[in-house]
């Protein structure tokens, strides 16, 4: 560390202090900003202010948000909650930037327009996507160019995207569902992708009203939010949307019907994984849609139900859902053991438990890792969750197993719509479930931790959950 000042001067230099304990949020930016501008100008004017440092100490007299120019702010809510809102000016070239970083916009200005794309092989990696990890640490799923091309061809049969289509880009592109079934889909077929950088129900509705999209791919909570908002605002959706796809979690049957009635669009439920570049199974747009089913395998994918020994099971029998095809990942990044475990004779084991009906439609019943073993019985958390959700005062429910000595207990986490006691919840469960499936404990929560695609993050409900956002000293 070399502060030149140490060697340059013997006498103590004087620095300036500006102290403002009753400032407002704009001062947080404007005060030091003005001093910086003064110093830059001082160089040319040879002003005396250009020499020493200035220390600014500020506190606020009221609550405030200092926001970058691209942040969407609800001004009505700000005034209701008495929060002052100030914006940072949009930075131009040569503006303030964090030290030792490159400014994207400056880089774009300097670079050449022409580039000859480097040739790649189908087996070369295109992306590594980290699984959101509802259990365990995120693993890097390797996806090749071939995987993406294959997925693009598979989804054509459901979505039939053309250059005339406008696709709503509300699902985050950092997630496989948005990256593959929205961004890739739209751009490969020459369509338009409408970007929604910050999801809120109001943003989504406004985007639909402004742009009249033709395709919408979203998660159940978004459809539910949208319906609630339409009802509240008493507005109608434009009849521009042809097909909607919902994935990542099941959408209640009534909800599908309500949404189809109010949009005039067909709403299809599908199923996919990061390991299959998103959708590998969906209800057919031109065939029978079965409620509660994830549908039929998309062209290019094969699916089967396997027993613990890897043998195929007949329809109606429950086992692990397995997938194979060109859209399936070659494995996890730098994790040969995990990769080996995830495959069996070319089949990728999804970790989802389910069955197939006589018509070949697939159904998911549980996550394998989440099955609770209590007193020798296998208990399906989903079955218990469904019973809990059927109680009129329960909004959301998540059930996990908790080790207690040698035993495993059933713990239910619920969010309530109104007044509700643990006893009422227990009584409700006892009516609908065998005694060994009734939760041992009911925990009330204000909200349940969820991933960006609306899946409950069960690992965060476990007692030994370590908050991975923290940075530890060692």
């Amino acid at each position, binding site marked *: 560390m070399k502060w030149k000042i140490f060697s340059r001067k013997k006498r103590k230099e004087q620095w300036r202090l500006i102290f403002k304990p009753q400032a407002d949020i704009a001062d947080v930016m404007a005060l030091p900003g003005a001093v910086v501008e003064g*110093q830059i100008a001082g160089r040319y004017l040879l002003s005396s202010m250009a020499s020493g440092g200035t220390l600014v100490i500020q506190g606020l007299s009221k609550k405030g948000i200092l926001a970058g120019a691209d942040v969407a702010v609800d001004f009505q809510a700000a005034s209701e909650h008495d929060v002052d809102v100030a914006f940072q000016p949009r930075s131009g070239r040569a503006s303030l930037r964090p030290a030792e970083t490159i400014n994207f916009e400056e880089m774009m200005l300097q670079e050449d327009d022409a580039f000859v794309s480097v040739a790649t092989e189908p087996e070369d990696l295109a992306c590594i996507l980290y699984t959101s990890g509802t259990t365990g640490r995120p693993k890097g799923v390797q996806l090749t160019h071939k995987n993406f091309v294959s997925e693009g061809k598979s989804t054509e049969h459901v979505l039939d995207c053309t250059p005339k289509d406008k696709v709503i880009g509300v699902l985050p592109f950092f997630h496989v569902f948005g990256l593959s079934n929205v961004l890739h889909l739209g751009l490969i077929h020459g369509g338009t992708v409408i970007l929604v950088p910050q999801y809120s129900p109001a943003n989504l509705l406004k985007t639909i009203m402004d742009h009249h999209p033709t395709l919408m791919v979203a998660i159940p909570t978004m459809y539910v939010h949208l319906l609630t908002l339409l009802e509240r605002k008493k507005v109608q959706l434009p009849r521009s949307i042809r097909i909607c796809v919902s994935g990542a979690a099941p959408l209640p049957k009534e909800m599908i019907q309500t949404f189809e009635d109010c949009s005039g669009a067909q709403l299809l439920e599908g199923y996919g994984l990061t390991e299959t570049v998103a959708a590998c199974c969906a209800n057919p747009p031109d065939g029978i849609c079965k409620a509660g089913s994830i549908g039929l395998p998309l062209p290019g994918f094969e699916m089967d139900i396997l027993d613990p020994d890897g043998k195929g099971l007949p329809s109606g029998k429950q086992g692990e859902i397995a997938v194979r095809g060109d859209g399936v990942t070659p494995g996890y990044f730098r994790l040969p053991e995990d990769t080996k475990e995830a495959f069996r004779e070319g089949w990728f084991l999804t970790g989802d438990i389910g069955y197939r009906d006589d018509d070949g439609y697939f159904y998911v019943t549980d996550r394998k890792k989440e099955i609770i073993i209590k007193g020798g019985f296998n208990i399906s958390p989903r079955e218990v969750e469904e019973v809990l959700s059927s109680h009129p005062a329960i909004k959301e429910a998540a059930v996990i197993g908790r080790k207690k000595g040698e035993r495993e207990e059933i713990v239910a986490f619920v969010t309530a719509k109104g007044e509700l006691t643990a006893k009422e919840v227990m009584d409700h469960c006892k009516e609908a479930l065998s005694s060994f499936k009734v939760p041992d404990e009911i925990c009330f929560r204000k909200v349940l931790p969820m991933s960006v695609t609306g899946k409950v993050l069960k690992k965060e409900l476990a007692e030994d959950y370590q908050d991975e956002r923290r940075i530890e000293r060692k």
Partner: protein
Amino acid sequence: MRKTIRMSGELNENNRGLVQSIERWASSSPDSVALQFEGEPITYGELNLRANRVANGLQGVGVAKGDRVAIMLPNIPEFVYTLVGTLKLGAVAVPFNTLYKGGEILHILKDSGAKVLVALTNFAPMINEVRPELPDLEQVILTGERNLVFGHPQSTAFIQLILPGDLVDDIDGAYNKIGHVLLEIVRDLGVKEAWYKHRGSIRVRGDKIATFVISEVEGIALVNALTFLAPLDTRDFLRIVWVPPEVRDKVVEPLTSVEQETGKRPPWDQVKETAIGAFEKAFEVELKESPMVRDELFGYEKLRSLAYKTR
């Protein structure tokens, strides 16, 4: 007998990936709209050209075929330019969740061995903090204007330092020095267990109690530090900048404050004296309170009116 029924339809022979498709559309219908962003259409021609610029930029900082480029961006055009530019180079894109925080970001960047990270400007402090543990990460490219600072009369103290460029030689050293000054302030306020490792955050256990970032403009360094004096209730703020309730606790990092650690919120006079003492000692200078000069006041009024301009 087990039946295997498949969805009707044969796979066609279109073997184009994203890059080839975009290049084809850019050449056959350059004026077709590829992206629509905040009322502004971006055509296939423009998308291809901007992706080319990113590819050139990445190549310029040493990215080659097979290297990993991490992308921590929301659905903005820069995400698409970076993704396509990365693929044009034959490099591997590693997009990840913009809600991730310290430990999670560290895991993904370390595991993937990313050489470059493209992120929003507001993630700079978080990235800074984990950067010394990421030997593979050579460049951080920042975009967008999504900074978000919550200020509260009871909870937050802003400490800012403006230094002419000739006083700062190297940024690593500056981060080290300022970090230790802030650590001393926090400890002098009674939080003895506070620690500082490198770049950006003063912590107690794994929780953040103070944070800072050093920015540069035309050779002048600006240190922006935020110290939490009392618990910060973020609920009101998160009603204004809409965040789904179930991910609210992920938007803000785990925080603590002087009051949570010592049982008492320090009064302003104590904060002021402690900060002055720490800076005077560390820089061997004398701090004297004096107001802004005329030129500065002019700039100050201009910046305030810009900040409060209704949009």
